[in-house]
C-alpha cells in the first residue's frame, strides 16, 4: 500500500507529540486544548502530559515560557496569531535572546508564531516576524513544508538558541517541498518569504508563458540570512534585478534582505509586502499578502 505523505499540519502535530513524549519538553500557550487544537497542529494531550494552558496574559506568558526554558527543558511556545507578539515579544527578546550572551545561560525557546489573514482585523492578521528581526540572539525560520519544519525543529534541538518559527496556516495542508526555480539568464528574481512563496511560484509559471523568465529563490531561513550561491548567481545574472516578497510590512525584513542582496550582487532589489495601511475586517479594507496578480504586476513594472 502506498504511504501517504504527512502534510505540514500533521508533521507539526507529530513533532509536538514526540517533543512531549520523548524529549521531556513542554508546550505552552493560550487556548491550546480548545476546539481546533491550534489548526490541528497539536496532539490531544493535556497538562499532565506537558501541554500547558496559560492564562490570557500575553506579556506574562512570554515570560513564563522564558523562565521555563531557563530551567533547561526545551519549550515550544505557541502564539496563535503573530500580531499577538506585540505583547508576547518583550521578555522573549530582552531576556531569552540575551541570557546566553550576558550570563552564559542559554534559554532555548521555540516560538511557534502563526500567521493567517483575511477578515481578522487590525492586529491578528499576517506575519510579524520583523518585530524580532532587528534584535540579536534569535534565529528566524519560516517553514512552509514538512521537510523544512523538521529541519527547523532539528536545528533547535541540536543547539540552545531561541527560534522564532514563522508559520502560516495557509501552508498546513501542504505536503510538497517548494523547490527553487532557476534560470541561467532570468529577467527577474523573486525572493519570497512565508505564504508568498506559493504565489511567487504561480507568478513565475504564469510569466514564463509570455516569455518572462522569473527565478524564484525561496527564503526559508530568514535569520541568519545566508543566500545560496545559486540564488546569488541568479540575481547577478538577472537583467532587471529582483524583489523580496513578504507577508509582513515591507519596512522590516523585506527591505533589509533586499538591501543585503543588493550589496552582495550590485543589483537593484526591491521589497514587496503588505500595503502601508491598517487591515480592516471587511474585504474591501483588508490588507492581504501579495497575491499572484500583484507579484506579476510588480515584475512587469520592473522590467518595463
Amino acid at each position, binding site marked *: 500500500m502506498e504511504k501517504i505523505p504527512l502534510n505540514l499540519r500533521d508533521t507539526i502535530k507529530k513533532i509536538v507529540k514526540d517533543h512531549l513524549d520523548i524529549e521531556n519538553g513542554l508546550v505552552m500557550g493560550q487556548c491550546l486544548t480548545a476546539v481546533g487544537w491550534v489548526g490541528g497542529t497539536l496532539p490531544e494531550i493535556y497538562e499532565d502530559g506537558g501541554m500547558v494552558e496559560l492564562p490570557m496574559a500575553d506579556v*506574562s506568558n512570554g*515570560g513564563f515560557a522564558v523562565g521555563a*526554558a531557563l530551567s533547561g527543558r526545551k519549550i515550544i511556545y505557541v502564539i496563535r496569531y503573530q500580531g499577538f507578539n506585540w505583547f508576547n515579544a518583550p*521578555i522573549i527578546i530582552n531576556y531569552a535572546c540575551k541570557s546566553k550572551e*550576558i*550570563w*552564559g*545561560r542559554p534559554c532555548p525557546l521555540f516560538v511557534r508564531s502563526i500567521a493567517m489573514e483575511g477578515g481578522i482585523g487590525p492586529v491578528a492578521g499576517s506575519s510579524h516576524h520583523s518585530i524580532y528581526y532587528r534584535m540579536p540572539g534569535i534565529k528566524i525560520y519560516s517553514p512552509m513544508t514538512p521537510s523544512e519544519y523538521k529541519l527547523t525543529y532539528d536545528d533547535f534541538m541540536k543547539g540552545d538558541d531561541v527560534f522564532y518559527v514563522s508559520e502560516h496556516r495557509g501552508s498546513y495542508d501542504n505536503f510538497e517541498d517548494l523547490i527553487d526555480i532557476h534560470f541561467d539568464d532570468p529577467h527577474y528574481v523573486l525572493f519570497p518569504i512565508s505564504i508568498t512563496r506559493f504565489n511567487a511560484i504561480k507568478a513565475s509559471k504564469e510569466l514564463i508563458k509570455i516569455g518572462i523568465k522569473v527565478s524564484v529563490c525561496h527564503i526559508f531561513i530568514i535569520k541568519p540570512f545566508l543566500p545560496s550561491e545559486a540564488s546569488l548567481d541568479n540575481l547577478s545574472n538577472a537583467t532587471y534585478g529582483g524583489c523580496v516578497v513578504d507577508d509582513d510590512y515591507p519596512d522590516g525584513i523585506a527591505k533589509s534582505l533586499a538591501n543585503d542582496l543588493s550589496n552582495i550582487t550590485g543589483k537593484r532589489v526591491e521589497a514587496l509586502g503588505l500595503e502601508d495601511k491598517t487591515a480592516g475586517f471587511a474585504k474591501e479594507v483588508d490588507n492581504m499578502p501579495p497575491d499572484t496578480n500583484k507579484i506579476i504586476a510588480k515584475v512587469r513594472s520592473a522590467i518595463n
Partner: protein
Amino acid sequence: MILDQSLSSRIYETAALNRAFEVSAFEQMKLGNIKFPAYLSAGQEYISATIAVALEEAGINDRQIFIQHRGHSTYLSFGGDIDKLVLELLGDKRGCANGMGGSASIHSVEANIYGHDGLMGSQGPISTGMCYANKIPTLCFTGDAAVEEDYFLASIGWASTKKLPIIFIVEDNNFSILTEKKVRRNWDIHDVAKAFKMKAFNIDDDPQEIFSCLDFENGIFSEPMLLNINTHRMFWHAGAGVDDPDIFDRHKSIGEIFTADYRENIQNKYNNYVSNVWKKYL
C-alpha cells in the same frame, strides 16, 4: 520562629557585609572608579540577609533566586562571589556577568542567582515560569515599583493558580526613583496577592517580623507567598548621593541589641574584608 542570639548574630553579620560593600561602592562611585549607574541597597540589607539565614536554618540549599536591579545585598546574602561583584562593577570581563551586567544585571551561576535584564519586573513571570517547569523553591526579589507592571500581577495570579513553591519578596522602599508610592497607586500589593488567593503579608524589614511570616513547620515553600517588606533606601536611586540624611537605619537599630564592642568588631571585620577586595582590582 523566635530569633535567638545565634540567628540574630548571623543575620547581623550578613547585613554587615552588605553594608560594608554598599558603603565601599558608594565611595568608589564618588572616586569615579565605577563608570556607570549603580543601584545601592544600603538600608535594605536586612531583607535578603534575614531570608538567606532563614533558608539556611531550614536546610533549603536547592533553591533558585531571581534578583532585582538593586541587588548587591541579595547577591552577597545568598553567597554570590564578592570578587566577581567588584570586577563586574569595574566593568571587567571576569565579573559575575562577564562585564556586561554592570550593577543592575548581576548574576551568579554558582549561587544559582539569575540576573535581571533591565525590563522592570520581568523577573516576576520568568521566575514563575522557571518554578513551574522545575518546581524548585524559588525566591523572586522585586521593588515596589516593578510590581505595578501588569505582567508582574499576572505572575502572582498564575503562581497562585498553580500553587508553586515561590515567594515574591517586595523590597518596598516607597520610591520609584523619588516618586512616592502614594502618588503612583491607591492599592497595596499584599492585598492584590490576597485577592489572587495567595498568602501575603505587609511587614517591616525587622528580622523577627520576617521570620514570623515563614512557615518553618510545614515548609517555607509549602505554598506560594508574597511578602511586602517595608524598608528604607539610604542612598540615591542610582549614584553616590543621599536623599534624606535622617532616614531610619535598620542596621543601626539592630546593632543596638549587641554590645558596642561586638558591633565595632563585626563592622571593622567586614569593612576591611571588602576594602581588601577592592584593592586587589583597583
